[in-house]
């Protein structure tokens, strides 16, 4: 359960830092009048942004838990990790490109450049679709080689981790499609800034999650953990 504890520890540090800024040590019973309200000096971000931040924390928790479960299950003697299909590397490049394209869309929206925004959104969406199709291809390759869900838990984990990640990306694609259709219907880029912003952040987040998942599935994460353990003992 180490990975989930590390992740929650990180969240706790962020929460503590934020609470410290909110006057958590003030003495409200000594105050009267409109008290020092931090929001008057630096207005809080929009509800959508805060909500999105909390949502990312929840999704992060979900993946950290899956990785914890993976790490615990892999220590049992029957564990046989499947070979990682080569296409996964191409998929990773696609996801990186997708992220880069959406970052471009974000910059375009800030510059109020409608054409660049459309190109960025379309490229990001297509690359994400290519990633998802590539993941399905990887599944088919594994199945063709005889690594089914029930063959070994390591295989099952491959399908579950990639599947859960894919479903999250699919959800993101729905939001992206809605933003894209608005951009095509001529909504000014400034008004789409928030949704483009959130999409881009979500893509970067899912890219980070994917890179971590990949390192876990390949076994790099395990090796790093083993080295750390050796250093500590």
């Amino acid at each position, binding site marked *: *359960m180490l990975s989930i504890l590390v992740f929650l520890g990180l969240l706790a540090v962020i929460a503590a830092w934020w609470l410290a800024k909110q006057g958590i040590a003030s003495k*409200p019973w000594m105050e*009267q009048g409109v008290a020092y309200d*931090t*929001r008057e000096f630096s207005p809080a971000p929009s509800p959508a942004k805060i909500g999105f931040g909390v*949502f990312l*924390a*929840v999704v992060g*928790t979900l993946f950290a838990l899956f990785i914890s479960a993976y790490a615990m299950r892999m220590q049992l003697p029957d564990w046989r990790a499947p070979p990682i299909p080569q296409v996964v590397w191409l998929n990773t490049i696609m996801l990186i490109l997708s992220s880069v394209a959406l970052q471009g869309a974000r910059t375009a929206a800030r510059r109020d450049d409608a054409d660049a925004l459309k190109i960025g959104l379309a490229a990001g969406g297509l690359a994400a679709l290519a990633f998802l199709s590539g993941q399905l291809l990887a599944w088919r390759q594994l199945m063709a080689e005889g690594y089914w869900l029930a063959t070994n838990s390591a295989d099952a984990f491959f399908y579950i981790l990639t599947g859960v990640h894919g479903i999250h990306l699919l959800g993101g694609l729905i939001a992206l499609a809605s933003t894209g259709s608005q951009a095509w219907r001529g909504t000014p880029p400034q008004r789409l800034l928030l949704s483009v912003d959130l999409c881009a952040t979500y893509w970067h987040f899912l890219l980070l999650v994917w890179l971590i998942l990949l390192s876990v599935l390949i076994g790099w994460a395990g090796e790093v953990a083993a080295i750390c353990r050796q250093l500590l003992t």
Partner: protein
Amino acid sequence: MVDVPLGPGTIIPAEIEDVELYHPKSWVTKYVFSQDAKVIAVQYAIVALSVGVVALVLSWLMRLQLGFPGVFSFIDANAYYQFITMHGMMMVVYVLTALFLGGFGNYLIPLMIGARDMVFPYVNMLSFWIYFLAVLVLVASFFAPGGPTGAGWTLYPPQAILSGTPGGQDWGIILMLVSLMIFIIGFTMGGLNYVVTVLQARTRGMTLMRMPLTVWGIFTASFMALLAFPALFVGCVMMLFDRALGTSFFVPSIVEMGQPLDRSGGSPLLFQHLFWFFGHPEVYIVALPAFGIVSDLISTHARRNIFGYRMMVWALLAIGALSFVVWAHHMYVSGMNPSFGFFFATTTLIIAIPTAIKVYNWILTLWRGDIHLTVPMLFALAFIITFVNGGLTGLFLGNVVVDVPLSDTMFVVAHFHMVMGVAPILVIFGAIYHWYPKVTGRMLNDTLGKLHFWVTFLGAYAIFFPMHYLGLMGVPRRYYEIGEMSFVPPSAHTLNAFITIVALVVGATQMVFVFNLIWSLRHGRVAGGNPWRATTLEWQTPETPPPHGNWGKEQPVVYRWAYDYNVPGAEQDFIPQNQPATNTLPLMGLAHA
């Protein structure tokens, strides 16, 4: 009193961003698919209380078997385990969690922080309907072939998905897992709303440290639930794969009914880790809102400012954080590494410190207070006693050496029912008696309320207190029938029959409460806006019950904390949070200090 001279000379209400409210146009959008947090709260409460009645009847059936074994032919071993499982899961997840967060959270958060509604009203509505769907799926398992699952509320594999367990190879376990997953998705939508509303939609002057403790409790619990429920979700997904797709996450090499199964290598312990990583925070997800609500009930009905407000907030946060590192104290007998036991016993005992701080502060709030023994106050006081009681046996069970012999006995049943069954339900009752006047505009009947209180409070002790003794004697829990065991004296059977009779009476008395809820809707005394003369914002709404949008034209402005009761020199014995500062009370701060 220290005046904080930061506001401009004239105070303009509501400078923060407003929620754009969708105003309902028809009966359906006003009462069924409503986006008003208050209507959603009532919807949550009605569904959760209905599920509670079903769970109560299930506990009756269980008690009938334990009190009078063999008398009721329709309760066989399978049915008994199904009753246990559904009773536990319904009460913990679908009643307590839904009622505290979905019910009280929705009603109280926007009103208490001076907001017009939740920040995402549409998502809020979805959250309720997804919860409702989860309940339907759960209830459907009663009618599925093979009936509901009988795996115990902890759903431990591998037994949960094997044919020896009711529902294991039928639909029962599948419907349970699917229902839980739906519940978690729905809750995440609601939880995001509660957290973001507190963070973003507080009215002007409502700093975090001016929020009533009720809001702090619900806020902290919502955040915890957002981070804890994913563990259950992961466990459910993996078990569903094990059950439906033949994977071996949790199922080791096993022989079922003489046949070796086509599985190997799975780890039942892995599920237990995931389950309790959710399960222990869940205890505090239920307890923290109760802590918050009780603080407000006690302060209001003892006409006294809460003692140690800052410490109360810090304790809530500390309990919330610590509750994520104690989960394996539920697993001392699971065969995990014994040295882990030492670690988890230590963290478990540490969590007693912030909890004890809260209890002391409640008692010090009552000290020299002007205590009004109203029905909400009676329930709040009963909560303190019951929570201390259940908490103390928790200290026993938190220690490995004591837990190992007691773990599979009725002692544990007594402990967790006291601490997370009876105690939070007492708070729920107290809170309903307290806020019903705001929800409906009418008071609940006092005489019926007192009858309900005394029977419930004394009855709960008559039911659960003797169970401690049964447990110490070694009477096992989870057994369909104890039968003749040399260490179980005949008096234990008499005690079991006694408990059953009391349980039937206490359960039936809850109908008095239900009657009161319905009768008072029309015939209750008209409450007025602020019948308890309370300081917090929900009692200062221009109309009672508050309409959609809560505040009419202008949102309130907050000038003080939530606990200005019996301030020396003040005209009344309470000063509402939205009453502007005056210069006539120069020593008020000293009185509080």
